[in-house]
């Protein structure tokens, strides 16, 4: 009897150990995480109802290839996944089939791939000593890795020679001038490329277009401003022809009826409240996500040149908020904040960028959301994962009430790949194409003047959005690659950077690469609604990257590209710092107080040599 009881207890304990599986992630994304996928994957989507794209499998054998060479690839398998890589590999293997080459005296008739899909970041991989022929990574301290002679091989010829798969085009021509300057590094008297950009990591607001269309959460053209306070419902309409022109100032475009200013955004939140909860984000990772979002809001206001100052610390800051003697934000008679221009010298006054007006407005935006309760409970819940936030955004059935379901989600553009499992499941259960329900919202402007300026730019055909790429990604060749294998790696990189491959990447991930490329209308039609809206915005946007070619950036690269504690504050020079997890706003601090605290936090770093000057 005792023996039986003991046995039962052992089984019970063993079963409890399975609780450890709770540490595993949420619904699996399409494909596997060990390279290759098991078959066709339902990704992307198109308006005709055909929701699957045949991505092939990177493990399929190519007829006629008897002795392929294995190229090793490390792919950061984060939100963007690896399905796009599997598809590219599948096509490339067919292209390379039968083309012989020799490595170490052995003749190969094709190329196979050994892909490591992992979430280890570049800086950790660099010190691991593990060699890969090709690296696809993010959050890369590019200059530091090259300087320490780790990991990346020179690849100038890859960038500057004509792409055999795209005649007349070089990879270098797909980079912006800023990217070309950054990715070329001078070392030992020689200037070379050591990598090129991979995907673009933007953060913003995803909205549920299905609900917006259904409930008519679009601003009505000609609405009365007084009604924003007195009769909010009168300001919104479900009539597609009666909407405002939207952020681009042009009627008949996709952004019609979307909020152009903060004020309109708050009104949108008011009209959503009661039916749904306006906005949500991950409470567990709010420090990182809100830092990214603040940066995005900041560049949205400041623009390309002023936004880029936050990395170069070299130039004139033109929108620095002036403080009164008591530390409060100075305003004019109309209530607008007063700004000034200051020449920035990294060594002496780089901290002054802490009072950029864009940051003030970003804090103001978050303060209002917290103050008015526009957010879900999960946004302040330290256990609320981003996958749970996505799940509740897509499928509110796990919530206590439908009113708790968010209508908007503060997320990165990779969210659809992360939520692929939930989207597929909802699609299967409902029979509806869930990938046509969401869209990327242009960030609203802080003031009407700014919104008007944006509309004017749009009318002139200029770029009128400014986005922040927060991810510092890279595609590079491994330093230890054999000289005979280098041409194969070069060939593969040139292959995956053709417009066709880049378009395929976008079709699968519904995101964009951080290089210039065009997609045909047929390709765009295969994107999800979110992908199309994102592409629509990026096509008209300047992008601020986490790059610079100044001494200050070189010495502080890791700190500058890292977003933890980036928007912290300290209220006096003698108080401990606090982080941008909006708990401060919930504790009663105002945006103005936090903004000044952020400036003090930055000043403290300069005064106490916490930055390397």
């Amino acid at each position, binding site marked *: 009897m005792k023996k039986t009881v003991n046995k039962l207890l052992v089984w019970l304990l063993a079963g409890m150990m399975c609780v450890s599986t709770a540490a595993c992630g949420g619904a699996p994304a399409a494909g596997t995480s060990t390279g290759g996928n098991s078959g066709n994957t339902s990704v992307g989507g198109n308006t005709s109802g055909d929701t699957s794209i045949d991505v092939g499998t990177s493990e399929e054998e190519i007829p006629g290839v008897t002795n392929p060479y294995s190229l090793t690839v490390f792919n950061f398998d984060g939100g963007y996944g690896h399905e796009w890589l599997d598809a590219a590999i599948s096509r490339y293997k067919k292209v390379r089939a039968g083309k012989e080459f020799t490595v170490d005296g052995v003749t190969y008739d094709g190329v196979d791939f050994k892909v490591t899909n992992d979430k280890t970041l570049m800086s950790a991989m660099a*010190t691991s000593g593990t060699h890969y022929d090709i690296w696809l990574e993010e959050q890369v301290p590019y200059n530091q890795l090259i300087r320490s002679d780790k990991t990346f091989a020179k690849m100038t010829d890859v960038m500057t020679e004509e792409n055999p798969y795209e005649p007349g085009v070089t990879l270098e021509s797909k980079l912006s001038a800023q990217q070309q300057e950054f990715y070329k590094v*001078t070392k030992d008297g020689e200037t070379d490329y050591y990598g090129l950009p991979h995907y673009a990591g933007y953060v913003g607001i995803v909205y549920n277009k299905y609900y917006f269309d259904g409930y008519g959460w679009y601003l009505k053209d000609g609405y009365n401003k007084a009604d924003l306070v007195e009769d909010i419902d009168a300001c919104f309409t479900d009539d597609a022809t009666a909407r405002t022109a939207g952020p681009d100032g042009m009627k008949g475009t996709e952004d019609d009826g979307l909020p152009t200013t903060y004020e309109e955004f708050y009104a949108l939140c008011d009209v959503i409240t009661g039916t749904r909860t306006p906005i949500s984000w991950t409470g567990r990772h709010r420090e990182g996500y809100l830092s990214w979002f603040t940066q995005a809001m900041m560049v949205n206001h400041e623009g390309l040149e002023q936004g880029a100052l936050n990395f170069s610390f070299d130039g004139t800051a033109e929108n620095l908020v002036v403080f009164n003697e008591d530390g409060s934000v100075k305003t004019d008679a109309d209530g607008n904040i007063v700004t000034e221009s200051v020449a920035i010298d990294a060594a002496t006054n780089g901290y002054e960028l802490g009072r950029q007006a864009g940051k003030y407005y970003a804090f103001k935006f978050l303060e209002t959301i917290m103050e008015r309760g526009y957010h879900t409970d999960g946004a302040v819940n330290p256990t609320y994962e981003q996958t749970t936030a996505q799940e509740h955004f897509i499928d509110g059935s796990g919530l206590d009430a439908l009113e708790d379901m968010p209508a908007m989600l503060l997320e990165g553009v990779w969210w659809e790949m992360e939520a692929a499992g939930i989207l597929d499941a909802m699609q299967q259960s409902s029979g509806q194409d869930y990938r046509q329900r969401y869209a990327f919202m242009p960030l609203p402007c802080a003031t009407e003047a700014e919104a008007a300026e944006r509309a004017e730019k749009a009318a002139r055909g200029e770029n009128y959005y400014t986005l922040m790429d927060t991810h510092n990604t890279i595609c590079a060749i491994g330093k230890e690659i054999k000289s005979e294998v280098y041409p194969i790696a070069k060939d593969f990189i040139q292959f995956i950077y053709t417009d066709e491959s880049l378009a395929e990447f976008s079709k699968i991930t519904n995101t964009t690469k951080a290089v210039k490329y065009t997609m045909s209308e047929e390709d765009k039609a295969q994107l999800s609604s979110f992908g199309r809206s994102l592409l629509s915005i990026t096509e008209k946007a300047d992008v601020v990257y986490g790059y610079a070619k100044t001494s200050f950036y070189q010495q502080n690269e890791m700190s500058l590209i890292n977003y933890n504690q980036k928007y912290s504050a300290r209220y006096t020079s003698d108080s401990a710092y606090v982080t941008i997890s909006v708990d401060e706003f919930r504790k009663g601090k105002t945006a103005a107080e936090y903004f000044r605290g952020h400036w003090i936090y930055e000043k403290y770093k300069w005064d106490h040599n916490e930055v390397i000057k």
Partner: protein
Amino acid sequence: MQENEILNANNSSEKAEKFLVNCPSCGVTLKVSDKNYAFACPNCQHLLGIKKETRIVEEVVLEEQPLEETCPVAATIAADEAAPAIDTPIVAETPIVAETPIMAETPVVGAPVAASAIPAKKKKISKSNRADLIFYCIFLAWPVLQFLVFYVGVNMNSILMSFKKITVGPAPEFEWRIDPFTWEQYGKVFDWLGGPDFRNMIGVTLKSFGITTLAFPLGLLFAYYIFKKLPFWGGFRVILFLPQILSSVVVALIYKNFFVECVPLLFPGTGNLLDPVTGQPFTLLMIYNIWFGFGTSVLMYSNKMSSIDDEIIESAHIDGATGVKEFWHIVLPLTYPTISVFLITGVAQICVNQFNVHQMFQYSADPSTRVLGYWFFIDVAGKFKDLQSVDGAAELPFYAAIGVILTFITIPIALGTRWALERFGPSED
């Protein structure tokens, strides 16, 4: 009485030889005679017996060794006038009656004899011993190498790094110039030590350490409860050891979700207790640390308690000591060395102990929960992610210097704690 009868019986059967031996505990010289009893040292109360054996004075090769190898001399054999002259001093083979006889279970050989009393003979290592030695060396080579590389090497590198400084040359090369020796980082560290962040963090750290240390009597009581096999002791053992068996990430996740999701349902109105604004995150963090810390400490304490001789417990019972008295006078003193180890290592690790803050709050820890160890983790590991060389990140020498300074602060505190515990704590004897 009974003992005396036995003594007399033995005494009458043969003439007792007198010997001088050293107490193996305190070293005091004792006059003993050879009989079948152990005795107690009148100086330190150490129980010992004496075994009379033949000493090997010269090692021989394996084949020539006698079948029974006797142990080398460990007891002082300095003959007095009554003692027989000894050419090769020996340890007695049979237990010898002391002047105050006390029964001992196993005979114990005493301390080494003075060199002048024993002719020294050169030891040669036998072939089998050489083989054993080689095996031990090979067996230990890998852990020693790991220690040298990952402890000594890493710490030496950190110390050297703390004296370095990076400056960047002009464009376009931006060549890094490394100043191999400068005190600049230490200047920055002293500035940081005087700053508000360190003040806040050291305050939270000391508070956290104090609370978790004050809870150690609970661990001791739990261990005693398990040791005494009181009702449901097995269940307690499982509950206390469970956090150690499961992944700490899983345990933290379960714990957080319990207080965030379950408690508000069970007790409406409590809300999210981990909320930094409306909840009690620090309190819950401390409860978690105390509960999580029970596993290792209870295991060690209960093991130590299990090693206490049953005879001592029984003799305590005979003397009327049970329950609290038994715990206070017998169990606690004998467990004290283990307790000391935990307290001393806790003090030594105070600056790097995260107190599970990152598992609970990731990068969003409120200042009220931000301890030094957590800050080290998010600021260094979070930002630099294994860029552990000067070539990797120019910002690292500053953190290396912090580590050196805090080490110099922590070492004397840890040594002082050890001295205080040894000085003022109960003696195992």
